[in-house]
C-alpha cells in the first residue's frame, strides 16, 4: 500500500472516530532526573504516515523519548501534542512493544483475549490475529514458555489487538535470531501498510536501513539530526551519526 492509500485509511478512521493523532509536535522537551538532564530541548515534527527510526548510542535517551511520547512519563518541561492532544489522552490509541516482552502468566491466546476484553473489543478476531503472527498452533500453550522470537511476536500481536493508530517499538528485536527479526519486521511492515504510524527504536543499522522512512538521531539527549532515511544513511550530516554508522563508539 502506498503512503497515499495509508493516508486515506487514516482519514477514513478519523472520519469514523476521533480527530487524527498525527501530526506529532514536540516542542522544547526537557527531561531531568535530579541534576542530570537526559533530554535537552527536543523539537520534533512527525508526519501522518510511515516508519520513523529513532537511533543513537546507549544512554542517548531513545527509550525515555518513546515513553514520553506514549504518555507513560511526564516531561520536566516542554510539550508534546498528538494532533493537539496531550500524550495521556493519546495513550489508549497507541501501543508500545517493549524490548523484553511482558507476558501474562496465562496461555498465548489468553494474553490476547485479556486485552480484547479489557478494551471491550470483539474477541472473534483472536484466531486470525494468532494466525497472522504465526502462533495459532501455540494458542493453548503457556505464554511464558515461548522462545524469545515467539514471545515478541505475541507481544506484537497483543499490541495490534488494541487496533493502535501509533505503534511504538522499543528495540523489539534486540537479542533475537535473524529469522525472528525478519518475522517481526514483516508484521510491523504489514501494520504500517494498513496505516499504523510506526515509531521504532533500534540499534540494528541493517534493520534501520530496511525499515526507516526517516531517522531521528539522538546524541547526548539532543536530536543531532532528523531527516529522510535516503539522506541519512549515505551521508549523515552530524559527526556523531557518522561515527555511529561507522561503528565508532559515540559517548
Amino acid at each position, binding site marked *: 500500500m502506498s503512503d497515499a492509500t495509508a493516508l486515506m485509511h487514516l482519514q477514513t478512521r478519523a472520519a469514523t472516530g476521533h480527530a487524527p493523532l498525527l501530526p506529532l509536535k514536540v516542542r522544547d522537551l526537557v527531561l531531568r532526573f535530579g541534576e542530570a538532564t537526559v533530554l535537552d530541548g527536543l523539537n520534533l515534527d512527525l508526519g501522518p504516515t510511515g516508519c520513523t527510526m529513532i537511533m543513537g548510542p546507549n544512554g542517548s535517551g531513545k527509550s525515555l523519548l518513546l515513553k514520553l511520547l*506514549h504518555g*507513560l512519563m511526564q516531561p520536566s518541561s516542554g510539550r508534546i501534542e498528538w494532533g493537539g492532544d496531550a500524550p495521556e489522552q493519546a*495513550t489508549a490509541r497507541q*501501543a508500545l512493544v*517493549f524490548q523484553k516482552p*511482558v507476558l501474562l502468566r*496465562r496461555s498465548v491466546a489468553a494474553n490476547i483475549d485479556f486485552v480484547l476484553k*479489557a478494551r471491550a473489543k470483539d474477541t472473534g478476531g483472536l484466531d486470525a490475529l494468532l494466525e497472522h503472527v504465526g502462533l495459532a498452533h501455540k494458542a493453548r500453550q503457556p505464554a*511464558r*514458555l515461548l522462545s524469545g522470537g515467539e514471545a515478541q511476536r505475541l507481544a506484537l500481536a497483543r499490541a495490534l489487538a488494541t487496533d493502535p493508530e501509533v505503534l511504538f517499538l522499543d528495540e523489539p528485536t534486540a537479542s533475537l535470531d535473524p529469522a525472528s527479526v525478519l518475522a517481526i519486521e514483516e508484521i510491523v511492515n504489514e501494520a504500517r501498510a494498513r496505516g499504523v504510524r510506526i515509531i521504532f527504536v533500534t540499534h540494528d543499522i541493517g534493520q534501520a536501513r530496511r525499515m526507516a522512512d526517516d531517522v531521528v538521531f539522538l546524541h547526548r539527549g539532543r536530536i543531532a539530526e532528523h531527516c529522510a532515511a535516503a539522506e541519512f544513511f549515505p551521508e549523515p550530516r552530524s559527526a556523531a551519526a557518522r561515527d555511529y554508522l561507522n561503528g565508532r563508539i559515540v559517548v
Partner: protein
Amino acid sequence: MQSIGEAFGLAIALVLSGDADLIEIVLLSLRVSLTATALACVIGLPIGALVAIGRFWGRSAVLIVMNALMGLPPVVVGLLVYLYLSRSGPLGFLGLLYTPTAMIIAQTILITPIVAALSRQVLEDLHAEYAEQFRSLCLTRLQTIQALLWDARYSLLTVGLAGFGRAVAEVGAVIIVGGNIDHLTRVMTTAIALETSKGDLALALALGIVLLVIALGVNAAVQSVRMTAARQAYV
C-alpha cells in the same frame, strides 16, 4: 493417665476406627477454619491488592499496621469478639456467642491481616513487573487488580494456606468465643487442650495426629498445584 506408648496405640486405633466423636470434631474444625479462610480471602485479597498498587499518603503507616496485625494474639482477638458478642455487648442481641459462627468471626479477624499483608507483598512484586505494560494498555484500577489477582493465583494459594494454617491450629480465640461445648463448638485444638487436662491422652493424641495429617495433606496439595503451575511458568 496412660503411658505415651499406650496413648499412641489407642490414638491410632481411634483414628482408624472412625470414631464418631472424633469425626464430628474434625469436621467442625474444618468447617470453621475453611469458612474463616474463605472470608479472610474475600476481605484480605482486595485490601492487599489496593495497598499493593496504591500510592497514597500514609501508605508506610498502613504497611506497618498491616504487618503488625499479622501477629495478633488469638486470645486478644477472642476477648474482643467475646466483648462484642456477649449478652451485654453491642452485638449481643444476635445471640452468636458460643456458636460456630462466633468462632468463624474470631478466626476471620485473626487471619484477614495475614492474607492482606502477605498478598500485598506478592501482588506488589508482580505489579512491579506489569505496571508499565498495564499503563500502556490503559487498564483501569479494577482491571489491574483483577489481572494481578488472577496472575498471582498460585502464589496466593500459599497465602491462603498460611491463613488456614494459623486458623486451624489456634486455640485461644475459639475457646473464648466458642466455649468448647461438646457436639456444638468443640474443635480439634480445644478438644486437645481439654482431653490433655483430663488426662485422656489417647483422644488428644488422636486429634493431634489428625491435625498434623491435615496440615501435611493441605501443604502437599498446594505444593503439587504450585509445581504443576511452575512447569507452565504460571507462578
